[in-house]
Every structure is written in structure tokens, then in C-alpha cells.
């Protein structure tokens, strides 16, 4: 599904990704771990198309297409979803209105008819249960005045509504207490399917207790320096990142 090869990306004059390789197949969950500043969020941002980053070398193939060639909204329409580390507050636009616009744009891209108000509400009700989110939250301005946990749940709710093929969760666990973490993880797990893939970017192993990955990769200095099964996460939790750093030198 996703094939990243020798990816180099910079912000300003600073190179952050320095030859990153990663293969993700449908049905798989990949965890990307690593110390602060390794380039985890940069990877998530580059995949979603954030314009602050410049890709200087390498390629990203997504379902046989050149991902780097696509506009941000085109990537979303093709099924890429980034759950933000810091979801943005959008005053004056309700979550409901926002999602209806987004969903119908994506449907238009796929050649599907737009959902009418009744169909949309039905779908929304169904997905609300998934992340235990309240109706009143959804009629408010998007993320405005939401608590940290509410913002993250809203991200997963949006993901459930848009049904992406490749979901990228950028530090979704940061700022969550254990109950919120469980709700978020439940939402992600219920969306697991053989034709979807998920990349979980996280600093801590904690989230991986709930979202069990098929593969764990360690990102350090802009490259994946170690990959392994889910047990690698436990090892990292126990030993920290220093041994990885030593190995990588």
C-alpha cells in the first residue's frame, strides 16, 4: 500500500528525514517510535502533505501512485488520514458541518453521490458510539475550547467518519489519561480491517498495549535504524533509546 524509499525531507535548511525506508501493507499496523527530534512527526506531516516541509530526495508510492505529487486534499480523498498531535481550533465551523463538507468532497472524488442530511446524521450517530463522543460537542465550533482528550477523540471520530485506507496517528496518546487512551484505542481497533493500514507514531510504549502493532520501527536521526515485532516496543520501554543510539553510530 505504502512504499517509502530513501526519503529525505527538510524544513528551512535543516534536514530532518535522511534516507527513510518503510513498507506498509494493507491490514498491517506499524508503530514508529523514537526519541524526541528523531523525525517522527515530520514523517507524519510529509505523508499528509504539510507544505512547510520540502522533500529533497526519495519517493513515496501509495497504491501505485506518486504520493508526493498529490495535493493535500487529494491525498485525503485517496484515503490518507492524519490524526493530528495538536488538532487545530476552527472558530465558527461546527464539527458536523466540517465533516459533512469533507465527507462529501471525498465522495465526490470517488465518484459517489453526496450524502443528504438524513443519511449523514445516521452515519454520524453510528460512529459517535465508536468513540463515545457527545452530540453537543459536534455542534460546537470545531475543537474550540475542547479539552485535550476531547480533541483527540474528535480526531478518531473524524477518522471513523472518513474511513481512510491509511491512517497515521501522530502522538495521539500525548495528553491523554488512561480512560481516554482506552476509548481512542478502542476506536482505532474497531476500524481495523484487512484492507486498511495504520501507522502509529508514538514516543511511549503505553498506547501499544491497546493498539497492538504488527511491526515496530525505531526512527533515529531521520532514518529507521531498527525494526522488529511488537516485543521491540517493550524492549524500548525497558531499556530506553540509548542502546539504539549506540548501535546506530
Amino acid at each position: 500500500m505504502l512504499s517509502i524509499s530513501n526519503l529525505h525531507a527538510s524544513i528551512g535548511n535543516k534536514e530532518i528525514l535522511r534516507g527513510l525506508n518503510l513498507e506498509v501493507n494493507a491490514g498491517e499496523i506499524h508503530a514508529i517510535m523514537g526519541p524526541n527530534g528523531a523525525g517522527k512527526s515530520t514523517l507524519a506531516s510529509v505523508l499528509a502533505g504539510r507544505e512547510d516541509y520540502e522533500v529533497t530526495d526519495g519517493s513515496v508510492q501509495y497504491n501505485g501512485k506518486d504520493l508526493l505529487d498529490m495535493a493535500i486534499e487529494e491525498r485525503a480523498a485517496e484515503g490518507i488520514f492524519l490524526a493530528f498531535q495538536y488538532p487545530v481550533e476552527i472558530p465558527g465551523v461546527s464539527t458536523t458541518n466540517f465533516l459533512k463538507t469533507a465527507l462529501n468532497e471525498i465522495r465526490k472524488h470517488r465518484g459517489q453521490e453526496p450524502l443528504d442530511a438524513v443519511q449523514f446524521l445516521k452515519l454520524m450517530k453510528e460512529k459517535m458510539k465508536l468513540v463515545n463522543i457527545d452530540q453537543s460537542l459536534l455542534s460546537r465550533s470545531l475543537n474550540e475550547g475542547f479539552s485535550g482528550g476531547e480533541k483527540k477523540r474528535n480526531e478518531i471520530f473524524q477518522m471513523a467518519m472518513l474511513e481512510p485506507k491509511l491512517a497515521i496517528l501522530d502522538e495521539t496518546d500525548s495528553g491523554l489519561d488512561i480512560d481516554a487512551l482506552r476509548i481512542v484505542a478502542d476506536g482505532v481497533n474497531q476500524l481495523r480491517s484487512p484492507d486498511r493500514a495504520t501507522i502509529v507514531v508514538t514516543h511511549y510504549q503505553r498506547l501499544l498495549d491497546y493498539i497492538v502493532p504488527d511491526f515496530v520501527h525505531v526512527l533515529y536521526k531521520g532514518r529507521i535504524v531498527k525494526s522488529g515485532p511488537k516485543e521491540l516496543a517493550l524492549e524500548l520501554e525497558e531499556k530506553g533509546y540509548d542502546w539504539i543510539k549506540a548501535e546506530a553510530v
Partner: protein
Amino acid sequence: MTPYASYNDFKEQLLASFRDNEERMNGERKAPLHQIRRAALRQFDQLGFPTIRHEEWKYSNVSGLMKQAFELDETTTLTPNDLAPLEIPNLDGNILYFVNGRYHPELSHIVSPAGQVQITSFASALKSEPDLISAHFAQYANYQENSFTALNTALANDGVVVRVPDNTTVDQPIILRFITDSRTKNIASQPRNLIVVGKNSELMLAESYRTLGEGASFVNVVTEIVLDRDARMQYYKVQDETEKAYHIGTTQVNQTDSSHFYSATVTLNGSFVRNNLNIRLDGQYAEAFMYGLYMPNGRQHVDNHTLVDHAMPNSYSNELYKGILDDNSTGVFNGKIFVRPDAQKTNAYQSCKNVVLSPGATMNTKPQLEIYADDVKCSHGTTTGQLNDEALFYMRSRGIPKDEARTLLLYAFSQDVLSQIKIQPIREYLERVVQEKLGK
């Protein structure tokens, strides 16, 4: 018509028009009302047109006004066909049409019973309601310092006079539609409105300005509003004129005890627009809410000057103006809050927020607080910035195309003001036009 050679030409033309009118008068020449007009004319003569050296006109240069010559009292008649493109869908109520400043009863319809509200043209009220006119005309709008107000006070010959008796809710809104027909000539008009709302009464009134044709237009309007004790008024001013339209207007509000005034001033289009909204809170527990939205593009210039004068204790004012500026447009916001020594326990809030979409657009903001009482709460803030890139990225990352994301964000930005408009057909009309303008 050839343009004026200098400022003086236009001024001379205006002064001569006053003398011509005067010559046609009989007994009225000695009337107190005419004495006010003469004083105002003298004041206009003395002040002349303001230049940018005048502090109140620092960012608004009216010299463009003199680049064409205007007809001062050119009446035309419009057919319903002419008006069709200007219509506001689903609008009900008292709809009054003024063409080039003159009231046209054949285009208008008044639906409210006379016992609820008296709606008279200014021209006929001069004859039929001399007491009302002399009690209020030019008693609030200051013609000593503002030359455009002086000019209007001297020359105004039509507009509307609205009087709501005590303890009455006017259940249908009053919509004043000022249409300048500049299809064949450049037209100047000086509408004058007087709105008097009695004790514990309620009124909704909107002024809408449109232009027909390709010629230049100059509207110099003054509206005086008097709210008696416990009166409540919704007041909207909507401007959607052409690229050759000059609009200078003053709305002067005088509020007494526990009266409430809610206003929204929405400027969609016009070449040069200057709105003065002056509110005197001359009573305890009086409240004024002022909202504004302006969206200039091209080379349009929109200037909003507001003044809230807290004269008595326990009064409240709250102001929110928002601007979206594109291309090479310029905007001005000057918000003055004056708290007099007697006005203890005043609450006054002011905020002006702007989004500048293009490097060629400029916004000038100037809050001015003059506080002479010591037990007051006042705040003000202005922001001018670009569209939030992070918000755009967020929306696009959910599949919303860039242009649509931009429109959604700006539309949401405008909603804080538009949602205040309680005359639903006007709000819906504005929402549609704003969306169309943002979508361009």
C-alpha cells in the same frame, strides 16, 4: 460632464444649489428650521471638504470625489423591471424606495398600521410634522465639526421620518432602499432620516444602498435616531454599491435610560465608503451593541469611524468590527470610547479583527479611549493577520479543497457579525452575497 477643476468647483456648485432653493422659498425662509440650515451651510462653507491633514480623515482621502462632476437633484423614475435585479428575496415589511435620494411612493409599500408606526417621507414631514422635525432635526448630528454632516443638514430634502409611539412593538421591519440611478449621469444625493422611538417601544430598521448603472454616485446620508426610555432598536446598514460609488454617512444615536440599540454595518462593495456611527449613551443602564463587517477588494476603500459617548452611569457598550481585505483595498477602523466623569460603572468593550488576504491590501486601526471616570471597565483590542495556514492545512487534510477551505474559514469569520442580523431575509441575502464574494 467634465470633472471639477478644483475642490472649489464642487463646493461652489453645492453652495449655489442652496441659494437657488432659498430663492424659491416664501415664508419658510424665516423659519427656525431654515436658520439651522443656513448655519449648517455657513459651517460647510467654512470647513470645506476635509483633507488628509484632518485627523479624522487621515487615512481617507476624499479628493477622488472631485474627479467627476455630479448632478445634485436629478430625479428619475424606475420601473419594477429596473428594480428586479436589486431585490432581496422573501423580504416582507415596510419597504421604502428612494431614487437619487427622493422618496418614491409608487415603488414602496407600507404595511404597518399608522397606530403602530408613522412612516413619512422627510419632504412631506417638513410640512406635516413641523413640531417633530424642529424638536429633533440636527439636534444630535454635529454639523459644527463634520463638513459632510453640515452639507447634508443644509441641503437634505428627502429621506424618511419614522415615529413609534410609546409602548408599541412595530412587528414589521422598515427597510429603506436607497437606489442611485447613475445610468446616464453622475448623481449626488443627500438623504436625511429621523427615527424617533417612544418609551418601551421596539423597532427594526435597515438601510440598504445600491447603485444602478456605470456612472459615479455620491451619497451623503445622515440618520438621526432617538431612543426614549426602555426603547429597543435593531438597526442595520447594508452597502453594496458599485466601483464608482462614494458613500459618506453618519448615523447619530441618542439613547436615554435603559434603552437598547443593536446595530450591524455591513459593507460589501463601494469605491469609497465612510461610515460614522456615533452613539451617545445619555441615560443610565443604556446599552449599545455595534457590529460591523467590511470586505473590500480591488481598489475599494472602507472606513468605519465609531464613537460611543458614555455620559451617564451604569451604561454598557460592546463593539465588534471585522474585516476581510483583498487585492489593493484599504480599510480603516477608528473606534472612540468616551467615558465622561459622571459615567461611573461604565462597561465598554471594543474589538476589531481583520484578515488581510493580499500583500497589496492595507488595514489601519486606531482604538481611542478617553476615560474621565474612575470606576469603569473598558477593554479594546485589534488584530490584523492572514488566514490561518494551520487551519487551512487541517481542513485540506480532511479532503476539503483549498479554495473551499478558505471560503469556509472566511465565511465562519464573517458569521460573528452576520448572525446578529435579526431580519432573516436580509441575513440570508447577506450570507449569500458574502459567500459569492468569497468564492471569487
